C-alpha cells in the first residue's frame, strides 16, 4: 500500500471538519456520562442504552409527525425529554436507594439495566433497521475546497459549542449547578447545610441522561438506528471521559475532540489501522497524564 499518497491540505482540512461533527455527538454523550460520574459517582453503563432509546424515539416521533421540518424538530426536542423522563423513573425508583453502594456494584446494576433496556427495545421496535429522513433544508452538501461536506454535519458542528456553553452555564452559573459541584466534592457537607441532596442528585442524573437522549436523537439521521448501538457508543464514551478527566465537562470536550479528530484523520492517513486508533490515543494520553488530561473531580 502506498502510504499516505493521497493526502492534500484540502483533504486534511475536510477530514478535520468531518471529525468535528463526529466530535459533537461524542461530546454530548460523553459529557452526560461525565456529569453523572463526577457528581453521582455512578459509572453508568446504561448511558449507551439511553442513547439508543433516544435514537429510536427520534425515529418514532419523526414518523408520527410525518417527517419534514416539523417532524424533525419535534423529534429532536421530544426524544431527549422522553429519555429524561425514563431516567427520572429509574432514578427515583431504583438508584436513589443505591448511592451508598460500592462503585462496582453500581456498575453491575447499570449493566443489568442495559440488559433489560436492550430487550425492551427489541420488543417495542422490532429487529428491522430504522432510518430518519432529514428535512429538505439539511439534505445535500456544501462544497468546501473541492470536497463535499454534508449540511447536516455542519449543523452538528454548530450544535456542539451550544451544548458546551449550556452545560458550562448550568454548572457554573445556576444554583443547582453550584450545589451539584459542591455535592460532588463533599455530599455530607451539602446535606448538612439543609439541602436535599437526593433531589439534586436526581436532577443531575436526569440532565446527564437527557444528554444521552439528545446525542441519540442527533445521531439518528446520520446512520441506521438499530439494536446494538448502545455497545458501540458506551465504550467510546467511557474512554473519552477517562481520558479527559472524570467529571470534567471540558475534559469530555477535549477527549471527544482528540477522539473525533484522530479517528477521521487516521482514516485518511492510515486506513488499515483505523480500528486501533481510539485505543492507542487513550493509552498514550493516560501514560502521560495518569489522572486524565484535565483536572478530575475524583
Amino acid at each position: 500500500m502506498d502510504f499516505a499518497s493521497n493526502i492534500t491540505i484540502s483533504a486534511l482540512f475536510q477530514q478535520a471538519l468531518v471529525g468535528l461533527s463526529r466530535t459533537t455527538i461524542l461530546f454530548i454523550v460523553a459529557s452526560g456520562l461525565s456529569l453523572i460520574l463526577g457528581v453521582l459517582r455512578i459509572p453508568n453503563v446504561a448511558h449507551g442504552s439511553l442513547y439508543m432509546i433516544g435514537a429510536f424515539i427520534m425515529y418514532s416521533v419523526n414518523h408520527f409527525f410525518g417527517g419534514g421540518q416539523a417532524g424533525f424538530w419535534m423529534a429532536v426536542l421530544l426524544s431527549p425529554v422522553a429519555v429524561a423522563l425514563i431516567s427520572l423513573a429509574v432514578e427515583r425508583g431504583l438508584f436513589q436507594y443505591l448511592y451508598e453502594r460500592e462503585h462496582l456494584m453500581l456498575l453491575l446494576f447499570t449493566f443489568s439495566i442495559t440488559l433489560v433496556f436492550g430487550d425492551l427495545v427489541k420488543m417495542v421496535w422490532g429487529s428491522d433497521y430504522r432510518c430518519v429522513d432529514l428535512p429538505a433544508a439539511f439534505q445535500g452538501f456544501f462544497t468546501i475546497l473541492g470536497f463535499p461536506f454534508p449540511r447536516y454535519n455542519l449543523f452538528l458542528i454548530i450544535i456542539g459549542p451550544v451544548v458546551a456553553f449550556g452545560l458550562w452555564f448550568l454548572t457554573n452559573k445556576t444554583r443547582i449547578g453550584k450545589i451539584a459541584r459542591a455535592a460532588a466534592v463533599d455530599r455530607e457537607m451539602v446535606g448538612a447545610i439543609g439541602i436535599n441532596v437526593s433531589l439534586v442528585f436526581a436532577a443531575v442524573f436526569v440532565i446527564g441522561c437527557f444528554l444521552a437522549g439528545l446525542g441519540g436523537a442527533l445521531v439518528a439521521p446520520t446512520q441506521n438506528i438499530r439494536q446494538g448501538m448502545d455497545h458501540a457508543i458506551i465504550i467510546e464514551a467511557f474512554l473519552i471521559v477517562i481520558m479527559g478527566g472524570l467529571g470534567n465537562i471540558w475534559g469530555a470536550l477535549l477527549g471527544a475532540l482528540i477522539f473525533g479528530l484522530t479517528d477521521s484523520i487516521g482514516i485518511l492517513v492510515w486506513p488499515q489501522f483505523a480500528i486501533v486508533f481510539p485505543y492507542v490515543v487513550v493509552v498514550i494520553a493516560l501514560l502521560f497524564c495518569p489522572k486524565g488530561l484535565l483536572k478530575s473531580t475524583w
Partner: protein
Amino acid sequence: MRKRMWFPVFLAIALAFLLTGTAAQAEKIIKVGIVDTYTGPPSTYTNDVRDAFKLATDKINAKGGILGKKIEFVTRDDKFKVDIGLSAAKELIMRENVDILMGTINSGLTLAISDLCEKEKIPFLVTFAKSEKITGEKGNRYVFSMNENTAMAGKAGAAGLAKKPYKKYWIAGDDYEYGHAIADSVWNHLKTLKPDVVLLGQSWWKVGEPDFTPYITAMLSAKPDAVIIATGGAGCVPFLKASVATGFNKSVPFYMHTATEMSTLAPLGLTAPEGVLGTSNYFYYFPDTPENKAFVKEFKDAYGRFPKVGALYGYITANFIAKAYEKAGEINTEKFINALEGMSIGSPIGELTVRAFDHQVMFPMFMGTTKKVEGYDYLIATDIVTIPGKDVMPSIEEIKKARGVK
C-alpha cells in the same frame, strides 16, 4: 430461617435441570434445531429464515409430514456470540436430540458448529453465514450451505463490473472476514476477466462503524473510476445514507453486494441513492414467475410482510429436508446426506441443486441497479441480469485446492 430457604431452592432447581434430559420422542417426529441470532442487527435477516421455515414445515405437516412423521423445530438465540451459540448447539444435539441443525448468520459460529456436527454426525444446514470456507476449505460431510457465499457473490460482482468501462478502483469494506473475502473474490475475478484494472487503494472500517462520511471523503480524494464496497448487514444502510449526504453516489459509481436487498433499501425509503449496483439471491418482485408470486402471497398472508432473501433460504431448507428424507426412505442421517447430495428441488426462483461435491446449493445471482419505481415506497432493483448458478460457483478444482486435496 425462611430468608435462607431460597438458596437451597435455587440449587434444587438447578440440580433438577441438570438431572433431567428430554424424553426421547424421536419415534414420532423429526426434530430440527435452529441456532441463530435473534437479537441485534442481524435479526432483521434471521427472522425471515425462521418464519419461512415454519411456513414450509406447516405445509409439509399438514400433508401428513415426512414418512408419516411431523417436522418440529426449536430455536435458540445465540446473540451473535460464538460461545453462546456453540453451547446452544450442544444443548440441541445432546439434550434435545435433534436430527438436524440449522442456522446461523455468524460465520465464525457456523464454522465452529460445522466442526461439532462432523464429530457428532449431525447434518448441519447453514442458512445465511456467507463465508466461503464453510463449504470450501473447511467443508465436511455433514455441512450443507443453503445460501450463496462470498466466493459466489464476488464472482457475480466481477462479472457485472467487467462489462463496465471502469479502470481505476478503490476497495472499501468491513474490516472482518466477510468484507475481506468478498473484496478479494471480486477483485481476483475482475483481474482475470479484465487484466488492465488498477487498485488505487483500500479503506477498511470497523464492523458497525456508525459514520462513513470520513471514509467517503478519503476515497473521493483518490479519485477512482469506481468503488467496490464490501460491507454487509448493518453497514449497508448507513453507507448508502452517507453516500447520498456527500453526493458520493453522483460522483463515483459503486458496487455493493447486498445493496439491492430489501433489508437495505426499505429502511431508507425514497432517499436511497439510485444507480447503485448490487447482487442478491432473491427479490419478492423478481423473478416474475407464478412460483414466486405464490410464495410471496403465502408468506404475506401468514406474516403480513414481504419475504426477504432469508425467507428463500428458510423455505428451501425445509423442502430440501423433506425431499431428502423421502428419498432416503427412513430417518437415517447417512442416508439423508447421500440423498441430499446432488438433489434438486423447485423453488420460488426456479430449480435449485445441491452440488454433490461441496454441498453448496447452486444459487443464481441477480444483479441489478437501484431505482425509484412507481408504486413502491422504496427503491427496488431494476435491469436485473440473472447470472446462473453454475457460472458463479467456484470450480471443484478451486475447492480441492482450498481443502488441500489432490
